């Protein structure tokens, strides 16, 4: 409970005594590159293969001749948009970006760089963390959209190459009974997960005490706590919105 209270105070501190608006623009752009653009390759690879594996495994499980083949791509579509793209990518995002944020801030803390900012009269949490949170909120939903697209494309190629589904059936399955709200739901989840990963990782890094060992522990803790928060939020959002 104490940690949750401290985390809430930390989040509040991001919005008080902010620096000039122009200062943040450059920082946010830099963070968008570091957080979003630099995660693109990893997210693309993971999403493509998850889509491919989903297609092959769904085909393997659908053995009844009564179920039409296009159901494979229908399952891949819904699975990807509802869960794989926003949630599994959030776990990957926490592993890559979360550990990076916690490591960076933790190192800045133990080498007194954060103290240097404080002594200058700069709100260090706002200056260092707010751009990361905003950049994550901007770029993660974009990554989710790209991941969903690549996952479905990956499933398409896997299905065609392994001959478990034809091209026409796959396209038909993707289009049939499509509920647009699933995309809205995925985007809502992506905003929530982006905030959780960036803020929890920043919190863990920002309050690191000690030396190199503690920085490592902070990075690990950032990833594990982010993953737990993602799974909890995933369940709550599903209960609330579906």
């Amino acid at each position, binding site marked *: 409970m104490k940690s949750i209270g401290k985390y809430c105070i930390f989040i509040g501190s991001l919005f008080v005594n902010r620096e000039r608006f122009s*200062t943040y623009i450059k920082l946010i752009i830099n963070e968008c590159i570091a957080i979003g653009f630099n995660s693109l390759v990893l997210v693309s690879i993971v999403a493509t293969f998850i889509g491919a594996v989903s297609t092959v495994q769904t085909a393997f499980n659908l053995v009844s001749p009564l179920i039409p083949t296009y159901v494979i791509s229908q399952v891949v579509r819904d699975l990807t948009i509802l869960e794989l793209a926003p949630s599994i990518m959030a776990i990957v995002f926490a592993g890559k970006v979360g550990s990076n944020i916690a490591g960076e801030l933790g190192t*800045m803390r133990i*080498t007194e760089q954060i*103290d240097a900012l*404080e*002594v*200058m009269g700069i709100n260090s949490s706002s200056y260092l963390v707010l751009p990361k949170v905003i950049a994550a909120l901007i770029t993660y939903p974009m990554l989710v959209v790209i991941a969903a697209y690549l996952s479905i494309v990956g499933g398409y190629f896997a299905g065609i190459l392994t001959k478990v589904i034809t091209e026409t059936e796959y396209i038909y399955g993707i289009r049939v009974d499509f509920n647009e709200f699933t995309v809205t739901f995925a985007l809502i989840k992506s905003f929530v997960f982006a905030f959780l990963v960036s803020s929890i990782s920043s919190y863990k890094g920002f309050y690191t005490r000690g030396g190199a060992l503690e920085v490592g522990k902070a990075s690990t803790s950032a990833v594990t706590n982010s993953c737990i928060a993602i799974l909890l939020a995933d369940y709550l959002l599903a209960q609330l919105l579906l």
Partner: protein
Amino acid sequence: MIEIQDIKKTFDGKPILKGISGKFEKGRTNLIIGASGTGKSVLLKCIVGLIKPDEGHVYYDGRDFTDADRNLKIEIRREIGMLFQGGALFDSKNVEQNVIFPLDMLTDMSKEEKLDRVNFCLKRVGLENVNKKMPSEISGGMKKRVGIARAIVNNSKYLFCDEPNSGLDPQTAIVIDNLIKEITEEFDITTIVVTHDMNSVMEIGDYIMFLYEGHKVWEGNDSNITESNVKELNDFVFANKLMRTIRKEV
């Protein structure tokens, strides 16, 4: 001038500072000395506001910093420059970006004015043609110089140095010490240096406060520190063979 009154600080029930008072005058190099673990760095952090003391007050030219509202605290902090033990240079910025940082954040100067000021400060600390180097590409002594340049670039009225010559060879350490003293006198600022290095004490100690187990047990200057009758101070000052030899000869 900086004045501290009855500063007390406890960590996890263990008292670290047990009521320290003193005055640090403008234009002279004020030293806080003592063995490791006596609370020097904690006192310095209390003075600059990185740690809030449990009791006591810190006054910057009569302005109460401890109980100041947020605006006054920011105003005072923007008059402070600090050299940290490891330099605390921002890893992601080069030397020029590190030194220009306070100007970018705290002033409305034009780009040219800022660059002129940065180059002046780097030249003043004896660094030229290193503007584009990253902190990882320069030596420990150079990092300290960059740290000093960053601390004075915003025309700071108060300069704090935490162990400025730790990790440096004796020659470079003396160069850094003298640089701090010269800058203090040249810009007429209030400087407080935390150190346990006797070379620094003898070289630049205009005013010296000696701490022992959270208490101030002695204050004076570099000319009378060797004449004290305080046992704890003498144990500290004459801990090394060189100082004991000098005492015998004198």
